[in-house]
């Protein structure tokens, strides 16, 4: 029986803990006061509109296991390989020992303040996809004046595929999330006109392409191929957009009540910190596995494993599948 530490109580960390706890004692560390924050921040999950809380509740139930010791509100800030196993240091300076460590410290969304030209934090009518999820969850979508928006525009690839912000990678989930959110808006506000500005729509998963078609045919959502170059406030506190419709070959100057920035996925602060401390930091400070094809849950450090979105942008269901693969890999290694 080995002592295994898992850093991060999101979907990945919990799934690994649930499987390994059948044979081993688990210490599950989470810097937040509760598990599954990223999932609970969402209202519904694509592509089948499953309530996020429903998934989170089922995941959380897996923690009802005496062999899983949860440590919420404990921020692990350092991770070092010792003589026999690993040493984890928390923010208070206390060290915790483990035979094996699973890094499952996940992601955080891109800070949209960095894209000043899009006005987040400057104009109240500019929100992020995460802000919209919270609105959908409360059942009320309003503009900054508290009124029902007549027009909502989504902009894809904010902080993703963007050399200016330093993130050249695709965040993978934003395209389908925008389609999902656009449909949610139209379901809740049938009189609201919805635009989605995109570079190209990457409908990579099962059911995604169908959802995209449904969004156009059944919900009348307008997809515009082009970037929004800048946002500004109109005199009546709406959001003025300058964009380009590349299919029409025309510049587009329009106003909207809400501009939703589809923020990409970045490594969480903990992921970047611990990946660097342990010597497994890859591009953009995501954690690097040995091989994405053959050993995607192993790292170059003996006894240190990785699971979920600490490696790269990943959907919830992909994260859970990846976590299961990590658990199997660990069992193979230590049995």
């Amino acid at each position, binding site marked *: 029986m080995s002592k295994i530490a898992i850093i991060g109580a999101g979907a990945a960390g919990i799934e690994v803990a649930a499987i390994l706890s059948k044979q081993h004692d688990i210490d599950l560390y989470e810097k937040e006061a509760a598990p599954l924050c990223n999932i609970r921040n969402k209202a519904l999950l694509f592509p089948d509109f499953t309530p996020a809380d429903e998934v989170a509740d089922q995941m959380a139930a897996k923690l009802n296991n005496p062999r899983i010791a949860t440590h919420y509100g404990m921020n692990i800030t350092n991770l070092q390989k010792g003589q026999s196993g690993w040493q984890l240091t928390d923010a208070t300076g206390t060290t915790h020992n483990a035979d094996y460590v699973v890094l499952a410290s996940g992601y955080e969304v891109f800070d949209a*303040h*960095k894209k*000043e*030209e899009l006005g987040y*934090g*400057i*104009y*109240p009518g500019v929100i992020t996809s995460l802000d919209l999820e919270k609105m959908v969850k409360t059942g009320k979508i309003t503009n900054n004046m508290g009124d029902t928006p007549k027009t909502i525009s989504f902009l894809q690839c904010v902080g993703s595929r963007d050399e200016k912000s330093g993130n050249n990678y695709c965040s993978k989930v934003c395209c389908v999330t925008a389609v999902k959110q656009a449909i949610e808006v139209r379901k809740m506000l049938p009189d609201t006109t919805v635009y989605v500005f995109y570079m190209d729509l990457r409908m990579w998963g099962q059911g995604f392409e169908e959802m995209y078609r449904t969004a156009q045919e059944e919900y009348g959502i307008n997809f515009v191929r082009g970037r929004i170059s*800048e946002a*500004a*406030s*109109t*005199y009546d506190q709406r959001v*003025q957009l300058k964009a380009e419709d590349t299919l029409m070959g025309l510049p587009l100057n329009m106003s909207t009540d809400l501009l939703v920035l589809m923020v990409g996925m970045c490594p969480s602060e903990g992921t970047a910190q611990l990946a660097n401390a342990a010597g497994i930091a890859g591009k953009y400070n995501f954690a690097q596995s040995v091989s994405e094809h053959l050993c995607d849950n192993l790292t170059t450090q003996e006894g240190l494993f990785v699971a979920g979105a600490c490696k790269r942008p990943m959907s919830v269901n992909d994260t859970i599948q990846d976590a299961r693969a990590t658990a199997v890999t660990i069992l193979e290694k230590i049995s």
Partner: protein
Amino acid sequence: MGKRFWNEYQKTIAKDRYFYERSCIRQTFFPGSEAAFINILRNDLGLDIYDSSHQHTCTGIGYHADVVPFETTMTIVARLFSLMAEKGYENYVPSCVTSFGVITEIVEKWNENPALLEQARELLYKATGRTFEIPKNIAHPSDIIYAYREELKSKMKYQLVNRFTGKPLRIVEHIGCHYAKIFPKHGVGNAEFPYVLAGMIESWGGEVIDYPERRHCCGFGFRQYLVQENRGYSVSNSRKKFESMEPFEPDFIVCNCPGCTMFLDKWQYTIAEMEHKTYDKDGYGIPVLTYEEMAGLLLGYDPWELGLQLHQVQSESLMNKIGIQYNPNDKYKGYNGKILPLPNKPSVLKV
């Protein structure tokens, strides 16, 4: 307006000992501004600024109009640098935003391609026998006024406040494209919300207006006005900005680029003649000031010494709002005390 992410981004601005490069446009249209800048630095701040009588064009307008080749521009910039070096200065201050863009572009190219730097040294030496050094610091005059804005505030007689209402004046600030759009790192506050003029306005009591066409071209845009047949594009750009800022009722516009100052000022006359439209309530237009004129007014400089009477849109209403003392009888008085010929009055725009 909410907090801006890049607001605190600061470039390096030399503190003293500047070599000044004058602007052809400013000397022609706003000569009082350049004089005011030198006076503010020397007399109000006690700084050392060298104003060479041997200086010349940076070629900016010809360069951007594709009539002056890069090699020529590069060599002429090298000669300007040689003037600075021979006087023992290292901090270069080009008065015009176009010059600032040309200078920073040339230095950037030399940094990236040392062969070009060698070529410039060779061309300058062959043509003039001169040598030069690259400046240690390049700052626009608006950078320097920005850097010393708090010191200047302590010397000011007036604030950017409407004395009748007690409220901050509402001000449109327009930044020249070549200030930060070419190299954002060379602009205070970066490129999206440059803070160089906004910082002055906020320090001196005013309020910055953020309006939808804030970043839109002023109408200068070299190719729009150099060819006379294209000037409709120039007017339409300025008009787009005026239409966008009009609902916000600005008290005045301040610019850090001579082209912007000129076109936002003079096209108000043109639009008034073409469309019988002015962009203030009373038909006088929106005054357009340089940052030196704004600073000079608040420091108590004589508005006619600053050259405000040379603008198309007149500034008396603005000065009355601030409470600035001036003698209207001196408005068109020359240095010899004689009254100069009075300009014709526009048919629509009130003066």
